């Protein structure tokens, strides 16, 4: 089963690169939704099946795969934006940076003192690579929505890391994190709508001009 989990984690890392390379926001949102669904399937593959496992799988798929993407794409539609124009760093450079970060996360995961049964799995490199991809999206994109997506990707990375520790992690913590995320996205969606209504642009680099003269 862990071999199949590894293939899924490869897919997660590929989705990271896809998100770095695309300029279409709706496509990016769909990619993050797919990543969420894959993350929802993963716990079922590495842990024995139980009632609370099925519950958490359903909740994760619902939240990360359906509700959050719906909220973001709703915000995108209301704000009338389809493309991320002029990111701080172009798509090809960010894509290359993402590949370098993925390679570095493999190198870094080698040096970590992991439990022997986790040594050969892809969880740690995938988690660090996803985290770094989130950072890249957060720092190189201008639009507030892209930054929300970056934040989501970062959370996905942390979630992958948490999968290895989930024996020690109670359900409540995971559920709480998920709820925080949901509320965060909800608030951001409202904020983005307000920004776009007031200022006809959600380009965060123009935020400095908000102050009164």
């Amino acid at each position, binding site marked *: 089963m862990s071999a199949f989990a590894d293939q899924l984690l*490869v897919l997660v890392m590929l989705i990271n690169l896809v998100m770095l*390379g695309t300029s279409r926001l709706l496509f990016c949102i769909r990619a993050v939704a797919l990543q969420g669904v894959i993350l929802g399937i993963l716990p079922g593959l590495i842990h024995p099946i139980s009632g609370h496992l099925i519950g958490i799988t359903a909740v994760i798929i619902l939240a990360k795969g359906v509700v959050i993407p719906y909220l973001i794409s709703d915000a995108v539609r209301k704000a009338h934006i389809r493309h991320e124009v002029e990111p701080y760093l172009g798509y090809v450079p960010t894509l*290359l940076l993402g590949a370098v970060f993925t390679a570095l996360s493999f190198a870094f995961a080698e040096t970590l003192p992991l439990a022997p049964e986790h040594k050969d799995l892809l969880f740690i490199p995938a988690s660090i690579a996803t985290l770094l991809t989130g950072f890249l999206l957060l720092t190189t994109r201008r639009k507030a929505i892209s930054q929300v997506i970056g934040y989501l990707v970062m959370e996905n990375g942390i979630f992958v890391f948490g999968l290895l520790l989930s024996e020690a992690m109670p359900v409540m913590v995971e559920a709480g994190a998920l709820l925080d995320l949901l509320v965060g996205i909800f608030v951001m969606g409202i904020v983005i709508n307000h920004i776009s209504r007031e200022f006809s642009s959600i380009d965060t680099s123009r935020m400095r001009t908000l102050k009164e003269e």
Partner: protein
Amino acid sequence: MIDILIHCALALLMPPLLLGVIAKTKAAFAGRVGAPYFQPYYDLIKLFRKGSVFSVTTTWVFRAGPVITLAATLIAALLVPLGRHAAPVSFSGDMILFAYLFGLSRFFTTIAALDTGSSFEGMGAAREVTFSCLAEPTLFFALITLARMSKSLTLSTILTHPTPANWLTAGASMLLLVGALFITLLAENSRIPFDDPTTHLELTMIHEAMVLDHSGPAFGIILYGAALKLFVLGAVFANIALPVATGNSFADWGIFIASMLGLAVTIGVVESVMARLRLVRIPQLLVGATILSAFAMLLVLR
């Protein structure tokens, strides 16, 4: 011995048929009858019977271009194993020779294009080198990955190494390699979405723009060389994507021929359903392919 003869016969005779199959597939998609499968052969025969016209501004480089290109591609065809049979010529490290034979042929195609002094051909040459220098790392990453898997530097061993068992253990990286190599195959052979081989507008062409001044037999050699290149890179791709070996030599040849024809149909389908990319998007896709193959290497090295 028989295998070597079949290898040479296939490499020499089969390439134009692939072009015919691609054209027929595209015609079927467009609802036309299309030219016969053997049309590329008729075209080649027609071109070889014609006389040549050489511009007075050109030098020997222009005449040498097509010949050297074809010669380099023919040597590459001897290095690559077809089906599950070892290549006629193989030695340790021939994968690097294989990659740079294509580099050599590209160099002479571009320098012959520059030799004419035509601005369109210069433009085509500039595009060709730009895109191929982005496509080359993909081929190398793929070869390095396979070399690492098979623990050998010989092309024959590397390319006959992938087996169904291999696919099961290293499925993810094999899948990445196949994707990356298919993109490279299309880019190296100037197919859609990178270049439209049937376009007749100099401004948008890449490979065809470089050979505008060649005529008669020289142009025939170029067309044949391009078909052979498609055949050789297609054989590399087929070896990795369809790793079936029956053990029976003749059955393996049959499987190989069928898989090459299948590949030609696939290329025809891709060309029918896709539009040519804008020139500025091409580097993005090529860099994406490079990253796919680099990622495959990372997974194997781990």
